[in-house]
């Protein structure tokens, strides 16, 4: 499932999931290489909700030890690319 998603598609999906968690956020202004937790004021509950959303959307397990890789948009894209080809 979703194994053929391209980086742009992944990015759009990530932004959509973030938009559902922080609906008032200006996602277009996000710097993909800087922590979106800082840019959007995402707290630990929001972040957990985001991880759950990734888990549901892509059917992947996301251990807590991987959380640091998921704090930027670019990091999420790379992480998902790795996870989805396994």
């Amino acid at each position: 499932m979703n194994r053929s998603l391209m980086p742009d598609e992944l990015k759009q999906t990530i932004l959509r999931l973030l938009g559902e968690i922080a609906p008032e956020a200006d996602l277009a202004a996000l710097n993909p290489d800087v922590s979106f937790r800082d840019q959007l004021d995402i707290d630990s509950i929001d972040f957990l909700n985001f991880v759950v959303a990734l888990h549901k959307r892509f059917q992947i397990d996301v251990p807590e030890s991987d959380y640091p890789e998921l704090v930027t948009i670019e990091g999420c894209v790379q992480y998902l690319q790795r996870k989805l080809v396994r």
Partner: protein
Amino acid sequence: MAEFLMPTLGSDMTEGTLVGWKKKVGDRVVKGEIIAEVDTEKAAIEIESFHTGLIERLIARPGDKVPVGTVMAIIREEGEPAAKVAVEALPEIKPVPQASPSGAGRTIPAPTPGLGRLRISPAARQLAAELGVDPSTLLGTGPEGVITREDVQRAATARPETAIDRQARMRQTIAAAMARSKREIPHYYLSTTIDMGRAMTWLKEENLKRPVADRLLYGVLLIKAVALALRQVPELNGLWKGNAAVQSPDIHVGVAVSLRQGGLVAPAIHHTDKLSLGELMKRFQDVVKRARAGTLRSSELSDPTITVTSLGEQGVETVFGVIYPPQVALVGLGKIVERPWVVEGQVVSRPVVTASLSADHRVTDGHRGGLFLSAVDRLLQEPGRL
């Protein structure tokens, strides 16, 4: 007959605006069921019924500003016969001024039909231009429907509230409550540093066993520890009423939630001490989500018996909070940081958190406050028992 009153949802609330009814006349309502939605200075709140029965009358209309304690509806309790209600005896409800989007809560004159051009006085036209009001949207109340300066003025001052307006109102509300707190409550402050090593290790292992959606945050361990510690020092769990403290038989921890647009609310997680960590996590997620979506319930705002606020994620190490009246205590939690710690004579690195207590000196003293913080610490050393 039971009167359904505008509830107070905080010491600073004086009135609310009825957004809409969730029930109609003749509907059955059960105690605790959502009966109305009310807009307050802080947020739109779902109001629960305190009675079970049939809706006999809906008195307040959507758009009405209703003072706290005013009758909004009449509920015929089970077994009671239908009765005529003395409407004249009920308090008057102020209608909202012009420009309520729904047009409810006031009487709007019918528009004057068939006019090819706008009937507006020159002075009113000039004022409309100055205030940025579109006169074509107004209904004139002057002779033959002419739009007057008063019509323009009314529309200008009664525009739908913007996000900035709401934020300003919330700031004012918080300011009023905090000023009252500092004016009336003789605060004292204590803090202690708690070794979180065992709790964090336990949490890591526990989360490995849990599906992603059921994982716990360390915050719920802290909230649960506070709730259980209140059983040991119950004087901190209650409200100041009149000239005395009243302990609450139930522990409803209010959790401070920052809103993205600014401001904060602290809804209650009911019976916090009786919830498992998994249940507490779900309830915590739920109230945070609904606080930010503006769908909290009235009891969640009126029932907290103590507040817990955490600023650890903002990098703060120590919080000395202001008590939210009429509560008599507030617990502040900081960031978990690695610090040198002596364990069995050896200096080791441990994750620690600073827990602070702001308490009302009319109700407790430092001795009891200290016992409370010690109890929180002790409970966190046995995380599996929380």
